[in-house]
């Protein structure tokens, strides 16, 4: 069985939009991304509130700890506890250089900021408050897009949520880039502005094929054992 999915590291295809992004993020700034018009900029400027409901449902499903916590785990979880999870966008970990970069939409509460500045656990914590979207918002947007007709129309393979909260990554299976109309439709479905869509073509499928056992002649046990306990 082969199903669709993502392939990272592809060349991003620029969307047809004009102007510059309101911020730059070196961690995962999409190549070739260009801009949106004035209306989009205004919408982006208004986008400051975080969605606590979406945040709680999104984060509770994917974050957790257990046993022998290490420095990175301790720091990331403390930051999430002290910060406003609803505005959390993501972490990028550089284990080699002992650095944790945290991305947030909007300000960070004073206790979290103080913790970050304290070099907790000996790690350098970089705080970036320029995320355009929270992780919860983007996860919800990704789910909406995956379920929308336009996703199939453009040959969508997968949607990614960048850790820097800059927008959505959209991987397409094929060389065709979406039309302006399709980009507009994607923006409407997701609430993510066109300038914040990082679109990559030729993503390719996901390989979930299950190989068959080569030698099926040996002594497979065909007895049905009794349940012991």
């Amino acid at each position: 069985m082969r199903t669709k999915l993502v392939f990272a590291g592809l060349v991003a295809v620029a969307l047809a939009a004009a102007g510059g992004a309101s911020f730059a993020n070196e961690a995962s700034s999409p190549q070739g991304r260009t801009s949106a018009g004035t209306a989009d900029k205004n919408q982006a400027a208004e986008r400051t509130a975080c969605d606590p409901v979406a945040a709680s449902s999104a984060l509770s499903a994917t974050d957790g700890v257990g046993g022998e916590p290490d420095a990175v785990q301790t720091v990331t979880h403390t930051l999430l506890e002290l910060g406003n999870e609803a505005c959390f966008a993501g972490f990028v970990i550089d284990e080699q250089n002992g650095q944790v970069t945290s991305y947030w939409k909007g300000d960070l509460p004073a206790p979290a900021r103080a913790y970050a500045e304290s070099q907790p656990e000996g790690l350098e914590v970089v705080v970036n408050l320029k995320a355009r979207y929270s992780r919860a918002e983007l996860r919800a947007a990704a789910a909406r897009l995956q379920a929308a007709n336009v996703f199939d129309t453009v040959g969508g393979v997968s949607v990614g949520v960048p850790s820097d909260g800059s927008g959505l990554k959209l991987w397409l299976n094929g060389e065709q880039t979406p039309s302006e109309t399709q980009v507009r439709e994607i923006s409407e479905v997701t609430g993510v502005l066109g300038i914040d869509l990082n679109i990559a073509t030729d993503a390719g499928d996901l390989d979930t094929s299950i190989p068959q056992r080569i030698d099926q002649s040996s002594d497979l046990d065909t007895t049905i054992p009794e349940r012991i306990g």
Partner: protein
Amino acid sequence: MRRRRALSAVSAAVLTVAVAGASAAAQDAPSEPTLLTGGASPELDQMEPVQTSGETVTAASAPDEAVAYLADTIYALGYDAGYAGQVLQPEKRAIDLYWKGELPSDVEELISGDPYGVQVNVDTTAEFTREEAMAAATAAVETSELDDLQITTASVKPDGTGIVVSLTDDAPAGPSAAAREIAAATDVEADAVTVKEDVGDIFVPTVDRRSNDSAPYKGGGRIYVDGRNACSTAFSALDGGAGRLLSAAHCVTAENTNKTVQDGGGTRIAQGDAVKRRKSIDSMSIDPTTSPASKGRIFVSGWNSDSTREVVGWGSNHTGQKVCAGGATTGHHCGNIIDDAVTASGLNGAFYVVARATTGAFQGGADSGGPVYEVLDSGNIRAKGVVYAGTLPSTTACGTHNPDVDPTCHRDLVYVPISVVLSTWGYTLDLG
């Protein structure tokens, strides 16, 4: 798989186990050295890397691990180039290596200068390679003309001088006569056959390994569905107090109506309603028939490894973090997370994780369902996810792998976060 065996149909696993038992010096040695493939073993990251034939390997800090790791590497490099066997002496930080003919240059290079402080004593006078001896041992127990001898087990000698055959206490032939009969039916001379008498109709203890685990089952082991679809187990989990094995839902395909899950030796683990799936997150929960059903440990190292590590907890996934995966096809590999929240068509959610191998393959066919984890400084395991797929554009060579399948391998691995799996099932992780 543990089972009582007599006379015939002794598997390769049984044969190799008997090797260790044949030599007192080899009691602590792996009967068949573990293969290390692709990335270095996580616990081996402490020491300086050594270059061998363009591949970087590292050694363990602990003496026994250094010895075992070097043995693994020697085996991986030379198993088809004259390798006969080796006896490990961890306490002396030494290996006695037996070879048929000259050492290959890469092995020679590897062992020169006492790598990792391990002394390798080489004897190149072996009469049989391990492969040749294994073929003879297999023939001894599988040839019907020898049934009358009442052979219980056959094994290869680690020094490459022949095979050891054990007979039941009711065996009619004496050792010399049995050796001659065995020699006639195999490719070895009678003087290369050592016959042990009166060993009884024995229970043969086998070593659990990735390729053939037994209850209580661990993560990272081979499973088959209906004897055909090959997959791997991820972690042991607890449904209340009852043990469950986690794997991938897509291991079961439409034709698998009975959903019979077997271990690598073909022993049935569970079937029917005891095998449940949550296709929305590609998760499978197996309720083994046996009790205790499972254990909070996973296999580490190569595809045929018998080494396991304790699972002590689980953690979340963030871009940039190092993670490792260890399916039963290609074994242990490591890399870094490149995307920590993506969707995958056919599955719910935008929380799937993509990781890229540092070098070579991260995942291959039938590694599906295997564990993704972090190796802690203590050597213990923190669970991170369950192998879902590889990405086709990242297809790459598999390297050494379990020969039970012909896999396609990928550098980019896609997995389901363990937190999602546990919360979806309502399970807790089974800690070792």
